[in-house]
Each structure stands twice: as C-alpha cells, then as structure tokens.
C-alpha cells in the first residue's frame, strides 16, 4: 500500500515465526499496521491465525522474528507489559472474572489508567456505556449471555485505553442484527486513531471492516491486499475450499 506508507506505523511484525517442536505454526509472517486502520487476519482452520495473534500479544513466545510497537521492540515483553503500553486484546473464548460483577470486571483494567477507585469506576462505567452494558453493571458476569459476554470482553479491552486493539473472533455466533451492530461499533472505535487487528471467520465482517487483509494458510502468508483483491485471488479461494496440499 504505497499510498499510506507515509502515515505512522503503530505495530510492525518482521519475519515472525512460531514453532512447536517440528511444527511451524506461524512461518515467516511480516506486516505493518497504521493508526486508525483495521487489519483483517483470515485463513482456514488451523492456519495459525490464533497462534500469530497470541504471539503478537505475548501469550506465545516467538521462535524468531520481531514485533515492534510504536517504534520499540516488544518481542520479549510479557503480556501484561504490552497491555500497559497500550496493546489491548479480547479472548476468543470470553474470559470474564466469573465471581465478579460486570462493573468490577471492567474496573480491574480501568485501575491501570486510574489508580483511584472513584476515577476508575467512572471510566469503567463509561466503557460499559460505550458497549451498551451500562444497565448490567451490577449483574454477576458469569450470568451474561454470549452476546453480552462478547461486549464485556470489548469493554475490558477498551478500559486499558489501547492504541492498538486485538480482536479475536468477536463476531462469531452473533445473529444478523447483533452482527451489524458490532460491525458499526468496531468501525467507530477507529475514529480516534486506534488501530485494530482482527482475526475473524465471518467474511462479511472482514470485508466490510478491513482496510487490509492478510490470508494465512499452514502458517504462511499466502496473500494480502485490500478486501477486493484478496477475495478475488484464486489462491485464497483454493485455500478456503480446501484445495491446498501440505506442500
């Protein structure tokens, strides 16, 4: 994308690889993410999307390569340090702090930016407002339904005031109206310059949202480009239809 090269890059992956024993789960993947942009990460099951995602956020160690965030190398930083620097994430399988209420769940990441209880609570409330969970603040988080748990995940990720947001399949399992709502919401997040990297299976969401898409298969980047380019690439269609051999 030569046109946008001028805008500041917030996250950069250089030749990132993750190996488990002999298996190359992520193999030599590079990309660059700019402020206010959305990068979609797609690929068939087992392509290494989630592994790459976890490697970028620090939950899985890199075997080689480098991850740079705002110009500093974070390849060896533990997850909590990346969060503190402004890399927020959601979990594919929602992980609310089960014994706590919805508000308390968001309070915990809010403390990172507001050490005092009063300020933290106000900020947590604001985040819940944004995701539309304000009326649920006193409910036990374990009692939320799937769509609301998703939104709670988002509120928690927003509470750390991320400059780059990692969204792991937040659209999966949503019904059509909820999906449309979520797509609009994610789009609104980029207005203040927040960059987003999303792993997603729902093609509609990826195509509508992404500025740039990376396609993974067997850990390798097999295609990238704008949604139009990627969806018409024969390689991608083949990968999704299961035509790719182990080679």
């Amino acid at each position, binding site marked *: 994308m030569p046109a946008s090269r001028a805008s500041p890059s917030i996250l950069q992956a250089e030749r990132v690889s993750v190996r*488990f*024993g002999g*298996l190359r*789960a992520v193999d030599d993947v590079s990309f660059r993410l700019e402020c206010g942009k959305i990068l979609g990460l797609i690929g068939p099951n087992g392509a290494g999307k989630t592994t790459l995602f976890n490697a970028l956020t620090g939950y899985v160690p890199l075997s080689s390569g480098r991850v740079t965030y705002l110009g500093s190398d974070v390849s060896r930083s533990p997850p909590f340090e990346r969060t503190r620097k402004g890399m927020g994430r959601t979990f594919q399988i929602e992980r609310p702090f089960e014994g706590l209420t919805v508000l308390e769940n968001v309070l915990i990441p809010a403390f990172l930016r507001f050490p005092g209880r009063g300020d933290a609570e106000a900020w947590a409330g604001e985040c819940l407002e944004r995701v539309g969970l304000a009326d649920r603040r006193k409910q036990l988080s374990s009692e939320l339904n799937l769509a609301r748990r998703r939104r709670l995940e988002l509120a928690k990720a927003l509470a750390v005031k991320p400059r780059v947001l990692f969204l792991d399949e937040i659209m999966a399992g949503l019904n059509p109206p909820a999906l449309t709502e979520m797509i609009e919401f994610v789009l609104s997040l980029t207005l203040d310059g927040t960059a987003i990297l999303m792993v997603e299976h729902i093609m509609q969401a990826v195509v509508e949202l992404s500025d740039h898409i990376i396609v993974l298969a067997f850990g390798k980047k097999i295609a990238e480009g704008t949604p139009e380019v990627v969806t018409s690439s024969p390689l991608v269609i083949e990968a999704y239809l299961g035509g790719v051999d182990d080679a």
Partner: protein
Amino acid sequence: MRIINFSHGDFVVIGMYTAIVLYTQLGWDPLLSLLVALPLGFLLGVVLERLILSRLVDVPEGSTLLATLGLSLVVQNTLMLSFGASPRSLNVAYGSATVNLGPMTLSVIQLVAGGIVLVVIAGLYLFLNYTERGQAVRATSQNRLGAELVGINTRSVHSLVFGVGVALSVAAGIILIPQLFVTPVITGPVFTLKAFVVTVLGGLGNVWGAIGGGLLLGVVEVLGAAYISFDYRDAYGLVAFLLILLLRPEGLFGRTVKRV
C-alpha cells in the same frame, strides 16, 4: 486421573486394622483377609467416588484436595475413636521368619510383599494395555473430553480407578501390618506423603514412573541417612520432591508435555 488424594494413606491404615480385627476376632491369616478385603476395598472406593468426588465439578480449584483431606480426618478419627491411639501390630507365626538368598537375608513378609507388588504391577500393565476398559482409563486420563466424545463413560472410569486405588491401598496395609506398627492418626499421613513423593518423582499418571519413583525414594532416603545425617531422613524425600516439582513438573520419567 489428576485427583490428588489426601486420604490415600488412610486406606492403607484401614487395611492394617482390617487385618488386625480379622486375625484377633476370627483368627484369619492376613493373606486370607486379603481375598475378602480386595473386593470390599474396591466397593468402598467406588462408593466414595460416587458420593463425594464425582459431585465436585464446577467448584473452586482445590476442592477435591480439600474433600479428600476431610475424608482423611474422618477416617483417622473414626479409627481413633474405635481403636484408641496406642500403636497396634499383628504377630503371625512367620512374622520374623527369614530366608537366606546368597549374601542377603530377607524376611518372608518382605518377599511376599515384593511378590504381590510384582503381580499387581503385571496386572495393572496388562489391564491398561490389553483390555478395552484399561484403554478407556488411559484415554480418560489423557483427555477427558475427547474420551467422552468417542463414547467412553468417563464417570464409570473415574469410579473404577478410584476403586482400584483404594483396593490396592487396603491390600498394601494388610500385607505390611505384620512388619509395622499402626496408629490411627499418624500412620496414614506418612504413607500419603510418601505416595505423593513417589508419584511426583515418577510423574503423575505414569505407572512405570511410579515404580521408578518408589525405588528412587528408597535410595535417596537410605543414602541421605547414611552419608549426610540420619535425623533428616524424612527431609531428603521432601527435598527431592520439591526439586522435581520445581525443575521437572512432569516427573523424572514423564514425557515433556507440549502446550499448543
């Protein structure tokens, strides 16, 4: 089965008291008691698993550990109230008989115990590797959800395993009592602790590891007592236990588990 059983040693103690009662009341030889106690121990284990452990799903972590701790206190103190705190033993005619094997002198009971242990090991090995039930046990231990997906009744596997565990503990108590003294409260934890050390040394869920761990614990304790200080005999096993836990949580003989 990844259940840390705090009452393990107390079942050994139950076996010991069973042997004592059957001998003093009915005049049964421990080896005869064994035949009766094995199925009863198995039943006891199955009942306890059904009544207590199987209910502990979706509860805070460490609940099974606490429940077996509670069970342990109940067993110990029931025995204490029934038999009193004084040490008891069992004298059988062959209790002090020995056999000379070249330069070694072995007591008959140790030989019998060793023989039974070999039979049990062989039995477990055959069961786990060559029967359908045994393979169900191994599958459940490796991946409970996966086992359920291929149609294994993991509930009955858990009962079976706990039953076998209790039966073997009771049997161990019966075999060992002519050699040892038993008290209701102290003896159980000693066996429990040794069992923890042995299994952690060998790697949890690994029968061969447990055998290696058992041998190693014996060697460590005896060597430590002989060359460092006898006073700390019990500590060597614990130190070894900690070191293994910290350095190689999968056990000395366990395979490295890869997380993906």
